[in-house]
């Protein structure tokens, strides 16, 4: 059985690399990645599970990292926006669709869209897309542009076949 008390070094599999961090068991994954590893794409917003700015992909599913302990993430595969590399299809689609204004929500939305495309490689029904996107809030109300970006991701994929 794993038992952690006080500060402990744990290994996390992040963006294809194993990284070591020194954490208290009550430290949140979001804070640890931002403060110890400089992975600042995931943003603190509400820190309450509501806004989605802190979303990462864990084992293929979107996850609000403000509601995850860093110690829990051991033995799981974590992907942050930095892991997409900057020129991923979802990122290009957001640029082309002007799917952001201030950009604070963007990394969270990108991770949701990335996971959506992985879990639903073929364009899902409208209500599925809506359900996934509703997990995140954009204070600048770029919702329509974000939705257009998702459609672009699928259209480009289709045109490559």
């Amino acid at each position, binding site marked *: *059985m*794993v*038992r*952690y*008390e*006080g500060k402990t070094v744990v290994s996390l599999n992040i963006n294809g690399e194993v990284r070591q961090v020194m954490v*208290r*068991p*009550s*430290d*949140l994954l979001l*804070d640890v990645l931002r403060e110890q590893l400089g992975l600042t794409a995931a943003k603190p917003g509400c*820190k*309450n*599970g509501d806004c*989605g700015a802190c*979303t990462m992909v864990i084992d293929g*599913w*979107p*996850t*609000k990292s*403000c*509601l*995850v*302990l860093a*110690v*829990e993430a051991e033995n799981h595969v974590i992907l942050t926006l930095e892991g997409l590399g900057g020129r991923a299809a979802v990122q290009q689609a957001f640029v082309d669709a002007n799917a952001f204004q201030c950009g604070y929500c963007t990394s969270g939305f990108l991770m*949701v869209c990335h996971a959506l495309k992985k879990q639903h490689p073929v364009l899902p029904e409208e209500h599925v897309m809506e*359900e*996934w996107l*509703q*997990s*995140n809030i954009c204070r600048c109300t770029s919702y329509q542009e974000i939705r257009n970006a998702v459609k672009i991701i699928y259209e480009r994929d289709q045109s490559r076949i």
Partner: protein
Amino acid sequence: MIPFDFIYCRPSTLKEALDAYRQLQSEGKNPVYYAGGSEIITLCRAGEIRPGGVIDLKNIPECKALALDERALHIGSVCTLNQIKESKLFNLLRLACGRIADHTNQCRITLGGNLCGSIIYRETSLPLLISEAELTLFGPEGERRIAFDKVFKGRMELQPGELVLQIHIPSWALKARHYHVKKTQNEKIDYPLVSLAALWKENRLRIAVSGLCSHPFRSDQMEAVLNNRALSRDVRSKEAAAMLPLSPLSDRAGSGEYCRFVFQNTLHTLLEEMENGKI
């Protein structure tokens, strides 16, 4: 951040979980079982709870199971709402899970956590209250299998140190005629004003409700009225809405009388759709 320390344990067996509970208890740590963690983290951060130890159940194979046999569907307590939805094995529960929080949170919130949590809505209890579901519990006294409604009285009544291991739904209920509706004040994703699950067994309607009172409930009295076809739909929905077991909540979602009014209309629509063959 969470402004205090706790001990984190991740057992791989039920025995280890119980040993961890006993050990932390003997150290005066006031431990809690930890599943999706969304409520525990939120309450710790807000300073509303201060456990000295958390015992993560997500690595225990029996708690992760999701299996169907000829008698029942067996769902491990740490299965997430999203896993239950994706499995498509019990549509009424799928519908209830699909309206709790948002999709990303559904990938994290567990069935056991929703049932055992302190947030009053516990919307996954509704399908279980009307489907003759059972629970397997594990604790200091060993393992016991018990009818869901014997332990869930609006909230879970577990023994100290006891945990929910699995939830079992009999196979007849998986295919039974059903209905689900959740009404919120404004936004689609919100706590319920009224959340209602309905299931028919031998042509008799059963309902369970959340959001309206301080905890979810099922009422025999209400069901007797709703099933009395000698009365008109107007009378049945009005009389049933007058039979709330507790006074309706008057909170941010609406006044008590407004909530009762919404409930009455919800019942009316349910009866109408049922009698017009739409359900």
